[in-house]
């Protein structure tokens, strides 16, 4: 795809969608386009524009400040510790399938972790619950080893399918933790009731533990049992942060810009609703 076309394509799609939304909404009512979703479309347009704008600035060499995230910095230290101890790094990309964005975030972080383990020749173990995740994780780990010039060190069975059942998977991974005593356990992705079973076992095994999930109900368990925890959005930022690539960091800045807009929108909404004049405002954000 030519570079110029690639640059203008996303903007074109956004403009066309907005134009269609307004044009058809007037002519056909809700028969073609769902007008009640216009607020989502506007937010999507602003979001996409912000990400593309910051990405362009990053490409042009503009310095973008990203705050330090202790949990992500600890990943490199954890792999270093495993190297010194001669023990493996255990990475769990959650227990959801590839259709879950948290799993994709986990797989992205796995790529960065695999590059570090390849660099130091540290053994890596990645148990997975779904065959699709197995295929993706094997591809990512192999690619990372190839890119680091360590294709010979890559062990295909470092990424292994262990069980399809939630607690069978947990039992297997807990067994691995107690038998192999990995120096570092990294949990990145979607976790459910097994989060504490895994993290407490890892804690008992004496491993340094770093967790990241976007599920607020599992965060207290990870915070209680792990050394570092990435909360919510930090999970999605981790792969970009670890890559140190300005292009990806631009995407993070775009996200921060939208967050500022949303914070302002929430403050305005809170004031209007408190004054009992906010019905029209809250209706703007209702999506059917």
């Amino acid at each position: 795809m030519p570079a110029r076309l690639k640059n203008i394509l996303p903007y074109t799609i956004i403009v066309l969608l907005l134009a269609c939304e307004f044009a058809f909404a007037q002519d056909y009512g809700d028969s073609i386009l769902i007008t009640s979703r216009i607020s989502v479309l506007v937010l999507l347009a602003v979001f996409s524009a912000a990400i593309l704008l910051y990405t362009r600035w990053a490409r042009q060499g503009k310095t973008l400040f990203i705050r330090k995230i202790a949990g992500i910095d600890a990943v490199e230290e954890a792999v270093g510790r495993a190297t010194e101890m001669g023990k493996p790094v255990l990475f769990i990309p959650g227990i959801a399938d590839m259709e879950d964005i948290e799993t994709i975030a986990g797989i992205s972080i796995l790529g960065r972790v695999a590059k570090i383990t390849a660099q130091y020749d540290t053994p890596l173990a990645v148990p997975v619950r779904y065959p699709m995740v197995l295929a993706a994780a094997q591809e990512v780990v192999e690619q990372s080893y190839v890119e680091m010039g360590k294709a010979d060190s890559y062990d295909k069975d470092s990424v292994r399918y262990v069980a399809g059942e939630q607690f069978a998977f947990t039992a297997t991974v807990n067994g691995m933790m107690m038998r192999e005593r990995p120096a570092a356990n990294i949990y990145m992705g979607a976790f459910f009731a097994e989060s504490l079973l895994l993290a407490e076992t890892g804690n008992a095994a004496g491993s340094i533990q770093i967790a990241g999930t976007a599920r607020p109900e599992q965060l207290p368990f990870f915070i209680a049992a792990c050394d570092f925890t990435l909360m919510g959005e930090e999970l999605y930022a981790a792969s970009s942060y670890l890559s140190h690539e300005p292009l990806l960091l631009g995407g993070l800045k775009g996200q921060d810009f939208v967050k500022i807009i949303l914070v302002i929108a929430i403050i305005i909404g809170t004031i209007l609703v408190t004054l009992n004049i906010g019905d029209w405002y809250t209706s703007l954000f209702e999506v059917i």
Partner: protein
Amino acid sequence: MRTTVPIIVAFIAGAFLTITFFFNPEQTLFFDATIKDGREGVLQWMTIVSGFALVLGVVSIVRVNARAVSRKSEGWFYKLMTLLSVFAMAIPSMMPTTTDSFGGGLIYSILPESWSYLFGTARGSIYDWLFEYLDSPMMETMFAMLAFYIASAAYRAFRARNAEATLLLLTAVIVMLWRVPMGEAFLRLFSDNLPEYINTFIMGGFNVSVQRGIIIGAALGAASMSLRIILGIERTYMGK
């Protein structure tokens, strides 16, 4: 090629599902297919690809465990049990249940037809028996163990090491008192409205506001990552 094709597929599938979200699903997309059909078609492709990937999962579990058994490495007996379990669950469930089923004529020329109730996944089959009396109780046991893990994690989390941890401990004690009937009765000794205040201010106030903050941040992060993947900016999920 290995990078370009997945990016194009991700862009087309992602853009299609995003754009059609704004259109009436009953509208005709092309020929007689509606937008709803198109969306379902994309999702069905995902299921089909997952079906093929299942073979990779079986190959992985057999290869890793068979190698450990053949080398008699540590814990080889458990790995042998894993292998036996995989086949004990899979083979009887895939066997034909009647002579008319695919391969049924051949199977029931070897085995007595009265054994047919053992195969498939219906009630009383080998698969059902293993699931009901082995798999399910083991899963429930694992889940039940969570209570002990919560106790040990809570003990560590609630140690009053500094001001913040002490605040956490006090809040946890108040919430735990409010959650149990005896505790609630104790709180009502001080004021009849105390349990309602705890519910309103701690659970509905601090707790919900913090959770919503995390959820909004996570949703933005997920949306941002999805957009970066659709637009081809984020390629880290391919190891790039």
